[in-house]
């Protein structure tokens, strides 16, 4: 069994798999958290009785996170076309 593992380990590109894992984890978790923050800000913006300043701040947060998400999607599209 161990011989099989050793033989296979030379064939498997562990470094490449590691890079894929790290990059995917960073972008996926980052995007989901960013989107979640946008949803949270939107929820706070819609809350009745919130102060005007708080509403403005939340609206700005929604706009910023939305721009970041759209930028990531545009990058995704660009990458699909030009990879």
């Amino acid at each position: 069994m161990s011989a099989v593992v050793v033989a296979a380990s030379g064939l498997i590109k562990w470094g490449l798999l590691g890079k894929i894992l790290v990059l995917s984890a960073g972008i996926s978790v980052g995007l989901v958290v960013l989107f979640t923050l946008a949803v949270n800000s939107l929820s706070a913006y819609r809350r009745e009785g919130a102060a005007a300043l708080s509403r403005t701040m939340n609206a700005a947060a929604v706009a910023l996170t939305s721009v970041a998400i759209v930028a990531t999607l545009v990058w995704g599209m660009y990458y699909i076309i030009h990879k």
Partner: protein
Amino acid sequence: MHNSFLLVLVVLIAVGFDFTNGFHDTANSVAPTIATGAMKPRTAVLMSSTLNIVGAFLSLKVAATIASGIVSQTSIILPVVFAGLTGAIIWNVATWYLGIPSSSSHALIGGVVGAMLAHAGGHAVEWSGLVSKVLAPATASPIFALVIAAIATTLSRRLTQKSDSTTKSWGMRTGQIGSSALLSIAHGTNDAQKTMGIVTLALVANGTLADNAATPKWVVVMCGVGIGLGTYLGGWRIIRTMGQGFTKLSPTQGFAAQVTSSVVILSSSHFGMPLSTTHVAAGSILGSGVGTKKRTVRWAVAGRVAVAWLLTLPAAGACGALSFLIERLVGFSFGQVLTGLITIGFCAVIFKLSRRDRINAENVNDEWGGHSEALEHVKTTPVVEPTEVSA
């Protein structure tokens, strides 16, 4: 070698494979979107189908060789490609009937490797390539996706605890539509090109095209439409397993799963190690279940799917080898017609069987374990409904 008859048969069976690839993989892009009600079932598959066709036209940079680095390219002949395609179609259709999401790419590679073994023996197969390009990524991809989706779901769930449920559901569902669209385009780009590569290879092998010729426009249109049509018409049985069988998805889980799938697939393509969309999507959905408070996943269903993944290469390979041996036994021209007819007959029988417990847009979201169950004989663990309110 010029044999227009064999060439036409290969092109026809390649389009058939393209179609099954489409309906088999619809679930990868839209299952969570449909399960959470982010889009109506027919609207979701229509969007996915259209974007798969768009994706097919976006890029033609994938290598125009099938199973490159896995089987000896110099030993490939049209009957091997034909037999490999029949093996892949048979496995795709059989797993579709059982509602099992298995990789169409692995089925195709298995079919071609099996046919090549029957044609030229073990020396024509590059076993190291099979391990490094197929087996290792096949094992790693669902695990990667599961872990990442579990982390993303956990974080998202905790961060939105104080948000009002209506805004949260609306927001996450809107996000799902965007991530589903991205996934559909990526799928069309990757998978339609797989068939374009086969047809181009057949044209080159037949002497119809020069060695380094570009893929003809008619091939691009044919493959794009084939995968798009398959995406629109089929896949309900697998959509049901992916959307309802693994876990009960909330919009937060669905969004986390779809973002994870899109990013893992694009990242792996970036590093030149394309992973199976099916394995990644299934891993992400399972991970989104693990990321819930009660870790609600039906592991019995996941285990059954994992067994099918293990069987994909050998089973499609056996079908491909058998198909090639039949072709050789009766002569390649008649043999291809015969194996083609056997494949069509098999598909017709499976289609007829599937009408007994029909799954379609109307019942795809029924409670798991209810009527018209593709996996009804699997004993499943009841899953507690997510606490998130559905708008």
